[in-house]
């Protein structure tokens, strides 16, 4: 699993004790901050970040140095640095790992950012569901303040920088920077129109720079090893590495960091070890609920911001969920839509109402009540939601539906016309049946059936009553004679 990986953001994770500042310092910790304060100027540090080609790792991919420059150019008596640690994609845990394994790398980078843009205060907006990350951050902040590496007059210089934590209640939309700022101010977590961008008018109406955890985790490494070193890794438009939370039906689930430009095939087969239990690869969802499903034909796509977008998905924050032949793509799209419907803040109509409509159509289809015209409706509504929603959440919400419709049209067709679910996941479209020749009448299925849908005397052939069967699949797991089939 080690080969093909290059660890930059995760360079210290698994190697240092996150609760001892000395461990971080022993791996060049706070050296970059020291050099910035005593040997460099804010604009020259910002230039180095620009030259490195680092782009936002939260999903948007905006050039980080450019973002700092814009915020530095805003004139104000007060500015803020915010670290976005509101990681909410299902199955993603990149930020949690960095914060739990190497909290100082984020603190150091925030202070460097503060120095560059002219801020003396930083906030980490973190999910309250990450208690261990919060605990380790608190310890790290206390240790850094005690050592004079954060707080007033850092290392005796004129620069002061304080970092505080703000807890999020776990709303997906608060990962969007304007909604995050609203939430920090004590308001409902709802996005607002941009411009003005946070760099001009952000937290408390002051210029604010918001970066994701992983973006910050790259900063000190870039300054220690040089912008040229960083930009030598990756592709033309996407420099450095990306951390992915590899999950789903892949053998080696885990957290991996690969150079940009690595192909999906290398990620899934060489690093991930291929598909579990010898099953066939079907699709991979990158970018969480905002991303899209890519298929076999996309496996040689290099992982970078532009290529993934061109293929119909997106980089996103780094969730990578692998699916095999047992996954029904309509059900997958429905799962993501359900998440979106739950998480939509409700402010704009296309996202609030439109996604609900999409969800209802998908629900109808998975229950075998879909019609061919529904597929056109999904496409139409999806495109309208994309082009008319207010924020990133709504603008990307239909992606899982649209990408599965594009790549797995036959599967949708099968559901609405033939009323069949090939992956045998949609309960309304499948039946469990006992094969008489194989049944020995042991009664195991009858005993395990929670709906009492199976009848038959001991040592006699058993029968499943289709009316009562709830299609839970308990019987098939229990049968030792291969006497039950799903059709």
């Amino acid at each position, binding site marked *: 699993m080690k080969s093909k990986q290059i660890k930059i953001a995760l360079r210290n994770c698994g190697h240092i004790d996150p609760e001892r500042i000395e461990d971080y310092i022993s791996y060049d910790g706070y050296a970059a901050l020291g050099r910035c304060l005593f040997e460099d100027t804010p604009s020259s540090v910002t230039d180095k970040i620009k030259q490195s080609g680092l782009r936002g790792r939260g999903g948007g991919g905006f050039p980080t140095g450019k973002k700092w420059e814009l915020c530095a150019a805003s004139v104000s008596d007060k500015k803020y640095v915010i670290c976005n640690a509101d990681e909410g994609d299902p199955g993603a845990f990149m930020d949690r*790992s960095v914060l739990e394994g190497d909290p100082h790398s984020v603190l150091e980078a925030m202070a460097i950012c503060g120095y560059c843009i002219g801020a003396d205060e930083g906030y980490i907006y973190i999910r309250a569901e990450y208690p*261990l990350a919060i605990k380790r951050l608190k310890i790290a902040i206390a240790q850094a303040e005690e050592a004079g590496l954060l707080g007033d007059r850092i290392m005796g210089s004129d620069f002061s920088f304080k970092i505080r934590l703000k807890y999020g209640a776990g709303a997906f939309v608060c990962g969007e920077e304007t909604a995050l700022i609203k939430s920090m101010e004590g308001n409902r977590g709802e996005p607002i129109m941009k411009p003005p961008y946070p760099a001009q008018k952000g937290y408390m109406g002051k210029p604010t720079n918001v970066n994701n955890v992983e973006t910050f985790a790259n900063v000190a490494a870039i300054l220690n090893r040089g912008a040229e070193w960083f930009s030598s890794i990756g592709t033309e438009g996407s420099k450095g590495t990306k951390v992915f939370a590899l999950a789903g039906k892949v053998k080696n689930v885990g957290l991996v960091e690969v150079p940009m430009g690595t192909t999906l095939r290398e990620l899934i087969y060489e690093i991930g070890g291929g598909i579990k239990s010898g099953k066939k690869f079907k699709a991979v969802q990158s970018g969480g609920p905002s991303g899209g499903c890519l298929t076999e034909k996309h496996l040689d796509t290099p992982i970078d911001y532009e290529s993934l977008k061109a293929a119909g998905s997106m980089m996103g924050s780094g969730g990578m969920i692998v699916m095999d032949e047992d996954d029904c793509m309509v059900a997958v799209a429905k799962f993501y839509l359900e998440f979106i419907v739950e998480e939509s803040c409700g402010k704009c109509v296309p996202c609030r109402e439109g996604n609900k409509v999409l969800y209802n159509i998908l629900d109808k289809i998975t229950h075998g009540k879909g019609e061919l015209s529904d597929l056109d409706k999904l496409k139409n509504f999806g495109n309208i939601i994309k082009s008319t929603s207010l924020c990133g959440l709504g603008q990307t919400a239909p992606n899982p539906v649209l990408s599965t419709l594009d790549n797995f049209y036959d599967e949708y067709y099968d559901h609405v016309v033939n009323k069949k679910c090939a992956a045998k996941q949609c309960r309304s479209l499948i039946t469990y049946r006992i094969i008489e020749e194989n049944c020995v009448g042991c009664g195991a299925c009858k005993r395990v059936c929670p709906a009492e849908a199976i009848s038959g005397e001991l040592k006699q052939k058993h029968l499943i009553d289709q009316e009562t069967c709830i299609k839970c699949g308990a019987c098939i797991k229990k049968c030792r004679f291969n006497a039950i089939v799903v059709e």
Partner: protein
Amino acid sequence: MERINNYEQFKKSSSGIKKERESNSSKVIIKIAMATCSIASGAGPVFDLFKDEMPKQPKEFVLIPTGCLGLCHSEPTVEVTLPGSDPVVFGKVDVKRAGLIISDYIMKGKTVDCIIEGN
């Protein structure tokens, strides 16, 4: 850690800390992943076992609780570096395997069957 009041002091202090870490290379270095995921899969008792058992062995060691290595498929993981050797990562370590890692690998240099990376 002492308070840093100027840049020279930081550089001095930092290189002192670096030297101290490098001096650890003559000892057995044991790193145990202790992130949320590792703890959930049982790293706590494994860490406690190393903490209790290692002082009884006639070898100098450092025991470091770390964040995660990203090897979710094999948690809890333990990385052992014997002096002069490359690090070896053991996966799916429970208390029983942890005992074997100490008695066989650390003390006798024999391989233990749960190696997932290295050697």
